[in-house]
């Protein structure tokens, strides 16, 4: 009886594992995923895009640090907006950002769709344990 029960549990887990892998595979076959991979690969070999990204990230880090300490002025808002515009002027970097946003949008949509059916938020409970930003 115990062995039978174990086998039912194993079957349930295997079915769940199969369905989870299926969902992952469906995502990697989707347009947003493929667009992201292509854009990311282009970014990785483009020196000017990497420089533009680094430059923007330096400004962004400084901005976030000031924001955390409550020292933001309207000048900082202008600086970050200009830095963002400059970075997005690089086509490869812009494509990489846009495709990443679209992919995350897809993940969120899938999560909303399945969470509505489950009646609880899947991602909220399934995300790895850790700090709130972990």
């Amino acid at each position, binding site marked *: 009886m115990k062995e039978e029960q174990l086998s039912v549990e194993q079957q349930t887990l295997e079915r769940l594992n199969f369905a989870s892998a*299926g969902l*992952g595979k469906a995502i990697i076959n*989707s347009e947003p995923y493929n667009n992201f991979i292509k854009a990311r690969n282009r970014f990785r070999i483009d020196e000017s895009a990497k420089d533009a990204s680094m430059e923007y990230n330096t400004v962004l880090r400084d901005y976030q640090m000031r924001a955390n300490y409550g020292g933001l002025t309207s000048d900082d808002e202008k600086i970050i907006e200009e830095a963002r515009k400059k970075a997005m002027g690089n086509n490869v970097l812009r494509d990489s950002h846009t495709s990443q946003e679209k992919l995350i949008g897809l993940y969120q949509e899938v999560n909303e769709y399945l969470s509505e059916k489950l009646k609880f938020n899947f991602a909220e409970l399934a995300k790895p344990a850790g700090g709130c930003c972990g």
Partner: protein
Amino acid sequence: MIETQIKYITDEFVRSLQSTPEVIEYIDALNNYESDMELSSLTEKYYSLSAEFQKKQYDGTLTQPEIAELRVLASRIQNNKVNKELAEKQNSVKEILRGCNATISNEISMDFAKLAAPTSGCCG
């Protein structure tokens, strides 16, 4: 708009989850929690008193008996059978869901749940 193929596969995934004992038990516990009148009245009272006492704390008029009253309420909520049951079932379901997320994430080479979860207040 989710692609039809993803929708179809997601439906399969949902059906597999819905037939998992841990998920069934968690949903039952969630329904019990939501329909428990005593618990909802205790929780409502707790939040309303917390807000009221926070104001008093700013004004420096919060008394020890008031702090004690809030603590008693919190302890009654924590020890409520339905609440405890929900916490227990949530721990079990989390284990199952994290396993599913690990499998999905392994396929897509990034953490699905972390990216798909609604952004929380503390991390923006």
